[in-house]
């Protein structure tokens, strides 16, 4: 498949944003082409369904435009865009779990993991468990986890984005991973 993913310079982004504000469809197309795959990796990693993830990419760009007037030159465009994608995906998962009446209770999740690991390891889906476990993380831990693992940001960049210290990022990341390890350990065959 044709992969048209070009890294845009800050100046170029500012110019494109300005053109979009004036109703330039081509500028919007260029922005979509440049960022859609990055957005997709985040939305897919969180929802783990191709069509849902693609719909979320579209929704992300729609929201981006709706808020385009609030974007100021010099701001971190990618961070802003990814935050929209992240929030939309988290909201989507929340709605989906409520719709499916899936338990959001951590205790239930633990029990589910234990039962899955003991009864039928073949049917147990660790990816699905990870998805649920990530969703159940406290908001700040979840943000750090997604930024580091799905958006591949270094601690320093995460600290800038979330306006917290690198030490706090390190601590939040550790807590998030520890929680996931606790939940997934029975399936992964290790000690908690």
């Amino acid at each position, binding site marked *: *498949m044709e992969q048209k993913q070009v890294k845009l310079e800050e100046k170029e982004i500012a110019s494109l944003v300005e053109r979009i504000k004036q109703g330039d469809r081509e500028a919007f197309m260029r922005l*979509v082409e440049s960022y859609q795959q990055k957005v997709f990796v985040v939305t897919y990693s969180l929802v783990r369904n191709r069509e849902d993830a693609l719909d979320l990419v579209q929704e992300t760009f*729609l929201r981006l435009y709706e808020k385009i007037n609030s974007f100021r030159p010099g701001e971190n465009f990618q961070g802003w865009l990814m935050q929209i994608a992240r929030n939309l995906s988290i909201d989507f998962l929340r709605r989906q779990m409520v719709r499916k009446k899936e338990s959001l209770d951590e205790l239930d999740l633990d029990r589910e993991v234990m039962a899955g690991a003991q009864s039928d390891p073949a049917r147990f889906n660790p990816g699905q468990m990870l998805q649920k476990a990530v969703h159940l993380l406290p908001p700040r831990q979840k943000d750090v986890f997604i930024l580091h693992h799905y958006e591949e940001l270094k601690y320093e960049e995460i600290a800038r984005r979330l306006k917290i210290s690198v030490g706090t990022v390190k601590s939040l990341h550790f807590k998030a991973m520890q929680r996931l390890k606790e939940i*997934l350990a029975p399936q992964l065959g290790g000690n908690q």
Partner: protein
Amino acid sequence: MKDCRQVKNELVAYLSQELSEGQRVEVEKHLQGCLACQRELEEWKKVFHLVSEVKEEAQTVASSIDWSAEASRIVNNTWKPIQKQPEKKRRWSFPGWRWQPLAAGLSLGLFLGAILTYLLITTGQVRFSSRQPDSSINLPQGFVEKVDLELARKQTIGYLETSQYLLSELLNSQKPENLSSLLTSEKLREVLTEKKYLNNRLEDLRLMKAKNICDQIEMLFLELLQLSPQMSEAELEKIRQLVEEKQLILKINLVKKELEQGEV
């Protein structure tokens, strides 16, 4: 030299490659001689591996997507709502948007009012012009007068005929008690009322002769009304004489004939 507790706290950052060079060397040195920490590291690696598997899965799926087509789809599907955006903003920026229903009502009222006024003015002009001699109803001059005269003539003939019947009845009755139902006071009143309506018609100069005889008949009938029903024979005879004296029947016939011929 770091102890196990310190190293275990650094393992996540170590696997995330977020430790400084010095810290990384220290952790690795400790791991070489500590089996417990090595086991801990292996467990962390499994979790990291699972996370990276999900990420790799996302990248694999992403590589199977035709992103050019997808970009077009995204732009096509989102551009329409995008284009509606400025309209939405304009609508919200209008300060008196709450008054829009009222404004719409007023506009409609003004519009209808203007139409009605226009129609009324137009109709008014027609009415004004109809008052002028050359109205939109182009009747020949004198036609209306002729129609009026004709109607007066017909009504007068009718009045004279009724009177003639009544007078004949009067002349033919030998005794007051023999007067037929024709000459009742009610009948006399009817004829007198008819005369009242006829008076206006008889104002026309061309009906002056008819007016004269009609007036005489009226006076006679008024007399009769005062006498009837207890009329004495002498009174009846007196009236009869009066009728004959004035040759009322003859005059009626003559005037009637004139009227019927239109020679008024």
